């Protein structure tokens, strides 16, 4: 067999394998989405939004879990946006090139991919039991702080990336007008980067809204409706975890419905974030 033919065959085999791998992977993922959809739609009904999590055998919904998730994620995002945007701004505009800046950036990256269950362990020991500031019981605040620790590194990273994309001419223009650095950042840079900052927030929100592990021993879960962050609080992923592990079919069904809700929310928020960043080249 001559060389040209051999090279041609090797090439086609390689392309074939790549396509095969893509098909296998997307096929498996499509299967997952399909079971999520088909199983989840069966459990979907208006009761999910109006009734609380039931005991096996009785009718119920996910109201307390949905409210708990929204509350904890909301509080977490307020904390994460406040710290994340400031830290990202500091890295991009003020101290990012100092040795300390490099250390902070590295630690942020570590925190970004640290196993989420460890964040749960950490917050448990600080806010639930064992430390001087511990509340002594599981609470929605602890859950929210755990989620905030997960979201902050994402917001920090996106903020820094987005601010770095802003042209230096903007900063120079602000200063040429005699504005202080804070005014320049607040009125020009943050405004120019607005959509990108929002995208960072949305990505962080999408990440934490499906997190279960950090909530297991911070917010714990609660069978009853509560809007008080000082009490143990149910969340959607935690309710799914509990219900999926029971042998009862009706609870399993609720778990699937919850999974569909969470996945739809995560996908929706992700798509919204992408759409906002569509021509800003958000760095992702």
């Amino acid at each position, binding site marked *: 067999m001559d060389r040209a033919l051999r090279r041609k065959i090797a090439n086609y085999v390689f392309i074939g394998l790549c396509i095969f791998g*893509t098909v296998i992977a997307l096929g498996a*993922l499509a299967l*997952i989405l399909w079971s999520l959809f088909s199983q989840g739609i069966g459990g979907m009904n208006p009761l999910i939004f109006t009734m609380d999590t039931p005991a096996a055998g009785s009718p119920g919904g996910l109201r307390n879990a949905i409210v708990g998730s929204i509350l904890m994620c909301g509080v977490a995002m307020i904390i994460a946006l406040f710290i994340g945007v400031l*830290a990202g701004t500091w890295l991009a505009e003020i101290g990012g090139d100092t040795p300390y800046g490099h250390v*902070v950036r590295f630690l942020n990256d*570590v925190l970004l991919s*640290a196993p989420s269950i460890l964040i749960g362990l950490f917050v448990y020991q600080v806010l639930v039991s064992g430390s001087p500031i511990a509340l002594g019981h599981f609470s929605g605040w602890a859950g929210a702080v755990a989620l905030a620790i997960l979201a902050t590194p994402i917001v920090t990273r996106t903020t820094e990336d987005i601010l770095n994309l802003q042209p230096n001419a903007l900063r120079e223009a602000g200063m040429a007008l005699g504005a202080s*650095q*804070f005014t320049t950042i607040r009125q020009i840079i943050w405004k120019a980067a607005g959509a990108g900052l929002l995208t960072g927030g949305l990505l962080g929100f999408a990440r934490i809204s499906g997190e279960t592990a950090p909530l297991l021993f911070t917010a714990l879960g609660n069978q009853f409706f509560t809007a008080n962050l000082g009490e143990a609080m149910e969340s959607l992923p935690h309710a799914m975890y509990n219900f999926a592990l029971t042998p009862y079919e009706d609870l399993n069904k609720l778990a*699937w419905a919850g999974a569909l809700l969470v996945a739809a929310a995560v996908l929706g928020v992700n798509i919204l974030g992408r759409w906002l960043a569509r021509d800003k080249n958000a760095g992702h």
Partner: protein
Amino acid sequence: MSVETKFKPRFDPTDPIFRWVSFGAATTLLVVLASLIGTLIVGGWPALSEYGFGFFLKFKECPVGNNSWFCIDTPWNPVTDVYSATAPILGTIITSALALLFALPIAIGIAVFLTQFCPRQIAQPLSTAVELLAGIPSIVYGMWGLFVFAPWFAKTIQTPLIIAASQDPTSWFAKMVAGIPNGANLFTASLVLAIMILPYMAAVFRELFRSIPPQVREAAFGVGATPFEVTTSVIIPYVQKGMIGVVMLGLGRALGETMAVTFIIGNSHKFPKSLFDSSSTLASTIANEFAEAADLHRSALIALGLVLFLITFTVLAIARWLLSSQRY
């Protein structure tokens, strides 16, 4: 990119305040990570000092004629308060390594396909789909594994394999597939884990391949290389270091993954004897037991957390170092 110093603006009292506040925000990150490590060490200390090195490796009396490898003792008993991290550490390493083994070639294949061969009109939507899938919460993968994949696997693959192996129960093959055919084992956990890290790795590989300047590819094509040759002898060597970094990032994810694994690994603290044996990982053990644990049991679980942190920290640090030229 900081502002050049010669453009220093005139003094404004809000500036130092803003600097200090944002400096404080950046420092918060450092404080959080430092206290995370601190609490893990403090919380895990009672268990670590109680068991010493035996927490990580412990041997037991060996039955005569048995392979000495299986004489590692892996106790995990909250009643008698004896704990050892060997089994969860092993389970973590085996599942992550297998998951990486399954996911890596396919992830590279997807990335190569999307950046090199795929028609432009399909490449964009496919890439977006892959990136969106990377965001699906891991508990969804876990539930799919528990309700759909594990029963199917037990029925269509595990049972026939065990029946086939019963012909010759002493063979190597029979030892590899021994186990309870319920689909909750090391192998299925690794597969679900692989499917979970696949979109993430594919997305980052794609970014990496896209960062290669087009001239490099064009030059290779210009001297008459086929797409296969361009990929293997130009593209992949060009981003070699970055690729290892991506592998490490994927490994970091697999090591720390909790929910996808907890549902499907079987959660038993013994030395895994076959591919289809139930096992446990560091994260799954913590997730399963922490809420009900007390005293030494709780401390042992926190010590597992410390081990998990050290392993992932090392892996991630290597990944970041290798990827330091590209930021993901």
